[in-house]
């Protein structure tokens, strides 16, 4: 059931556009995506764009066609300077991951871009429309999924979706049909007539996301869509996001997890204290913050020295370290290091009980970028900010 969700949505959106889809919606290779459509493995081979509608093959292309543009956004709440000049740019059909700790200004930025909040300074445009002057137009092309489920808990799932359909001018029959479609694609049909307050956390997130898709928006804001979800539910959500993007939507996603940004985003903007401290591709960012760490626990502690030797060889140059009792870690730059080390352990006859590849945590990213941890208090001396 779970991995099905994203795929079904992908299929539906393709159908909406009069296309056939053969795109696998999982396992999209991010590195390849950033290279452009020519080499993208997720590019559908049999997509026939009917009537000149741009399909995934076109929309996936990186162009200067910016759907989300923000320049110098400033927002102050009393003495708190939530945003101190944030620039964001998201080309059509791509995902921007906005990475930052709690209180960095991520939500404030999303609220400004989705017209919920007027900036004190700076400008922002969605599909060319100014979020302040043309707020009404902006609202017609966006879907917002907030950090807290923005559905009515007293209403059933179906009533919620029908309400939004009515408000989006789909008409009574249209709203009903759209609600049924979305409930089906998000696997909520069985729970459709239950009040949303009886839903589990994962169901609520799905309903919330479904609610933001009622109007088939071109631009989707996801404010920490997976915070509080267990890993399996998180993967579901990722599949949904991928299929939305595969079908031409542009997504701005905020997250506290580098892993999530890495899994979904074409580009990552790291913000901290209302400022952009880095903007790069996931690859570029990982290069800066040290890429991944390979962790190994040999079954027999006596094997530690030999294990360390092998790890140092497959690693990116640094010496393997014992980070916890009996666990060795080494920074690696290449995913192949994992299989490489497995092969070498087998040859050397070393049995391991734990073997894993980790991306740096948000704390580590921040430590690298700013010289302090993300959770450290603002009152400490501010290190020089890394230029974006």
């Amino acid at each position, binding site marked *: 059931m779970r991995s099905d969700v994203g795929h079904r949505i992908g299929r539906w959106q393709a159908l909406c556009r009069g296309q056939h889809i053969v795109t696998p919606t999982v396992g999209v290779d991010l590195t390849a995506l950033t290279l452009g459509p020519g080499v993208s493995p997720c590019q559908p081979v049999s997509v026939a764009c009917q009537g000149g509608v741009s399909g995934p093959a076109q929309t996936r292309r990186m162009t200067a066609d910016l759907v989300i543009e923000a320049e110098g956004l400033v927002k102050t709440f009393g003495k708190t300077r939530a945003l101190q000049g944030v620039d964001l740019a998201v080309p059509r059909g791509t995902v921007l991951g906005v990475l930052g700790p709690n209180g960095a200004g991520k939500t404030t930025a999303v609220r400004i871009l989705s017209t919920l909040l007027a900036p004190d300074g700076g400008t922002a445009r969605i599909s060319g429309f100014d979020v302040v002057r043309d707020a009404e137009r902006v609202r017609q092309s966006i879907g917002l999924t*907030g950090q807290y489920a*923005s559905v009515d808990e007293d209403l059933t799932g179906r009533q919620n979706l029908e309400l939004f359909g009515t*408000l989006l001018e789909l008409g009574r029959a249209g709203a009903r049909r*759209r609600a049924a479609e979305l409930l089906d694609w998000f696997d909520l049909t069985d729970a459709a007539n239950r009040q949303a307050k009886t839903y589990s956390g994962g169901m609520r997130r799905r309903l919330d996301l479904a609610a933001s898709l009622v109007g088939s928006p071109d631009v989707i804001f996801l404010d920490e869509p997976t915070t509080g979800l267990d890993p399996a539910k998180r993967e579901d959500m990722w599949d949904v996001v991928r299929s939305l993007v595969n079908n031409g939507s542009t997504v701005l996603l905020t997250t506290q997890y580098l892993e999530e940004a890495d899994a979904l985003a074409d580009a990552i903007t790291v913000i901290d204290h209302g400022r952009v401290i880095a903007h790069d591709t996931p690859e570029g960012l990982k290069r800066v913050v040290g890429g991944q760490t390979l962790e190994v626990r040999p079954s027999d502690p006596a094997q530690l020295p030999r294990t360390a030797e092998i790890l140092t060889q497959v690693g990116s140059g640094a010496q393997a370290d014992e980070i916890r009792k009996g666990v060795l870690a080494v920074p690696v730059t290449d995913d192949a290091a994992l299989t490489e080390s497995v092969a070498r352990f087998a040859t050397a006859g070393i049995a391991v009980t734990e073997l894993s590849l980790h991306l740096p945590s948000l704390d580590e990213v921040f430590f690298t970028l700013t010289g302090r941890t993300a959770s450290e208090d603002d009152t400490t001396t501010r290190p020089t900010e890394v230029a974006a």
Partner: protein
Amino acid sequence: MSTLTDTAPTRSRALSTTTPNPRPFRLVRHSLALAKRSLIKTWRTPEALIDVTLQPVLFLIIFVYVFGGAVAGSTHDYLQFLLPGILAQTIATGAIAIGVNLNTDIAKGIFDRFRSLPIPRSAPLVGAVLGDVVRYVIVTVSTLAIGYVMGFRIDTDPFRAIAGCLLAVLFALCLSWLPVLVSMKVRTAGAVQGVMFALIMPLSFASNVFVGADTLPGWMQAFVDVNPMTHLVASVRGLFLGTPLGNHVWWTLAWCAGFVAVFMPLALRAYRKKI
């Protein structure tokens, strides 16, 4: 699946350069859709109807049997006199609930969703106000029902009786913009309740609800004479019992218009600033 293509046109909305939403009466349609939401919520939480069902019953029983003999000489005479007053009082206090509900509702994410939709910003508030009409109808029905059981009889005709009920509902509908305004201005639901009781209680007691205004001291009579509640009660009494109407209906309608003209724009402005 064949119906799916019907949804395709909505995708192009964002890129269209024509005036968005040419369909007329958006505010009305969207408000009604949101009023339906309020109705569903009311239906789902019947305990929230206690103020409009139990309160008029208790007030009628207590006041009629405790004060009836002393104030009017007989409980039946006092019931005839008091019922329009109790209807006006409970319908006015029933309007407080919308402020309390909105204050808690607005803190939830759903209002963010509303504000991110291409609908008039005021629609969620107008919808909530309209949705409460059903509560006012319930007050009216339960007051008349218990009154009937206790012996209350309408002395006029059904048309005037219905006109009296509609006037009371309209009054509450217009007055409810005041609690909506208060709910935007104070922080907690409890504070809305407190502020509103402090405003409604003097209005309902310093009036002709419980006793004839001519028994009151002069300075208070001056207040009673302009009190909107006095005009409403005198109108409903006239329409139910045939007592002289004077200009009371016009005064009531004028107050209704005044409530909407003053409190609605203030409430909408406060709402826009609040979030």
